[in-house]
């Protein structure tokens, strides 16, 4: 069943193009020091300093910042943290939603009521104000608080969707059979129910990763991240705060946004493909 799922996934054109984009970004992130022409915080070479706020030229294909950093190199090095934070947050969020959803969906009764209540509370809390408040009171600045904050505010939606699906699958015959046969609940949940919601899990992962990448960029853009770290979000922060718009330095704020958008699109494509695969009605008439 899972094998079929993956086969359909790789045969889908949208999924494949999404996956290729993602793999390209992962490659760039891993091989950043080899691919990038300069270091992320390098502003001179052989004693000659780089021009400041320079438009794209053969030596700096995406120009330089106000401090003379090469933007193309920063973009490449920024891929590491941006992708790392996005994927880590996506994995944590998915894991929490899955655990909560499976548990509350299968348990039913008062435990389910309690968990659902908490989930609903997290759902109606507008996440951005909460993120901003938490992020400004967390004493340390950097990647870990961002992952923490985004995970805390991001799990509820997935948990609710997973719970609903588990509730409906829990009523099917094959689950009843396992129950009558005396299987332990933990075995039923992981061996019988989990494989049936694998597409949902993947969809949750893709959606929450997109949300995490955009959320990360947003937080860093308003200066709540570690502004010394090199990510696409902090690049936008520096561009905004050093008047990149004012000086018409489009080469500074355009590329990071385009990269975020491309990365988001790759996940959106895969998500869309999963939707098509798991819902035959959408696939064809």
């Amino acid at each position, binding site marked *: 069943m899972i094998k079929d799922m993956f086969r359909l996934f790789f045969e889908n054109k949208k999924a494949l193009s999404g996956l290729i984009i993602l793999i390209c970004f992962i490659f760039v992130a891993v091989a950043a020091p080899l691919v990038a022409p300069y270091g992320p915080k390098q502003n001179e070479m052989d004693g000659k300093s780089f021009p400041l706020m320079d438009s794209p030229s053969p030596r700096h294909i995406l120009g330089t910042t106000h401090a003379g950093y090469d933007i193309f190199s920063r973009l490449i090095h920024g891929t590491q943290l941006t992708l790392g934070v996005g994927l880590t947050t996506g994995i944590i969020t998915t894991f929490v939603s899955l655990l909560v959803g499976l548990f509350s969906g299968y348990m039913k009764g008062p435990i389910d009521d309690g968990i659902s209540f908490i989930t609903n509370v997290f759902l*109606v809390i507008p996440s951005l104000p909460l993120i*901003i408040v938490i992020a400004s009171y967390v004493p340390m600045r950097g990647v870990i608080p961002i992952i923490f904050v985004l995970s805390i505010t991001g799990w509820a939606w997935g948990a609710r969707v997973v719970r609903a699906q588990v509730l409906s699958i829990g009523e099917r015959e094959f689950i009843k059979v396992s129950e009558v046969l005396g299987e332990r609940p933990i075995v039923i949940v992981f061996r019988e129910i989990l494989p049936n919601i694998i597409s949902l899990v993947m969809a949750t992962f893709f959606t929450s990763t997109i949300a995490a990448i955009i959320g990360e960029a*947003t937080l860093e*853009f308003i200066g709540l991240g570690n502004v010394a770290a090199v990510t696409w979000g902090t690049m936008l922060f520096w561009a905004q705060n050093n008047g990149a*718009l004012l000086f018409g330095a489009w080469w500074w*704020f355009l590329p990071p*946004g385009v990269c*975020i958008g491309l990365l988001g*699109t790759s996940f959106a494509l895969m998500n869309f493909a999963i939707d098509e695969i798991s819902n035959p*009605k959408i696939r064809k008439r």
Partner: protein
Amino acid sequence: MSILVNRIQGADAESIDAIRAAFGIDTNKSIVTQYFEYLHNFIKGDLGVSLTNFPTKVWDVLAQALPWTIGLMGLATLFSFMLGTMMGIFVAWRRDTKLSHTILGLFLFIRSFPYFWLGLILVYFFAFQNTIFPLGGAYSIRYSKADGWDYILSILYHGLLPGLTITISSMGYWMLMIRNNMINVLAEDYILVAKAKGLPLNRIKTYYAAKNAILPSVSGFAMALGFIIGGSIVTEIVFSYPGIGFMLFQAVQQQDYPLLQAIFLFIAIGVLIANFLSDIMIMILDPRVRDGSK
């Protein structure tokens, strides 16, 4: 407390005591009593005094910002819902045409960008490169309320770019939502029957398919209205729009607790009202819910 004292350097002990009294932190009442006093004062329309805008009342500070946010975000959300839903219906109805594939792809792409970045791009091209639109703010300082029409036009003119940013970036959400529902509805048997009866296709599209597919979008729309107050932060920062989101951001940075508390209170009220609205709208639109109690 120390935040404010630091701000007013050189205040003597007596005035510090007076300030303590003004903020209601001179008491040794329990936290529960204080909480009920806050609620009691809230009913009387008193939310305390803002720390950063001392000695302005929180209520007055909020009253300045709230209309801007509700006006801008409310209209933008409404437009994006209407446009997005109409496009979603079209895309689902003509799902195998090139045009609908293009529209779908385009909005899938736009939705992947952070919306503040779209805002930056719009500002760059339409305010810096070509000075068609203003850089930010809610209205031109040349006008005031006394100018009547000019003032209103100036507000619209300043609101267009931020409004456009929000509309464009959230339209895809509404489009996808109704598209997926619509495709499910179109696969139902009663649509087939309607077609077999030879009903006009437009009638099937609007009254048979869209009317049933729109229900989740409508409750989603009502919920989105509730998030207006909290959802405008970054747009307002980019466009330096004097709304509640911008104020929340400043309040967080300057640790203005009374103001923060009040803003969150309003966010909560917004969500509650939206939930209520959503239930009512669904009741009006969906006969199954309406007649369920009989």
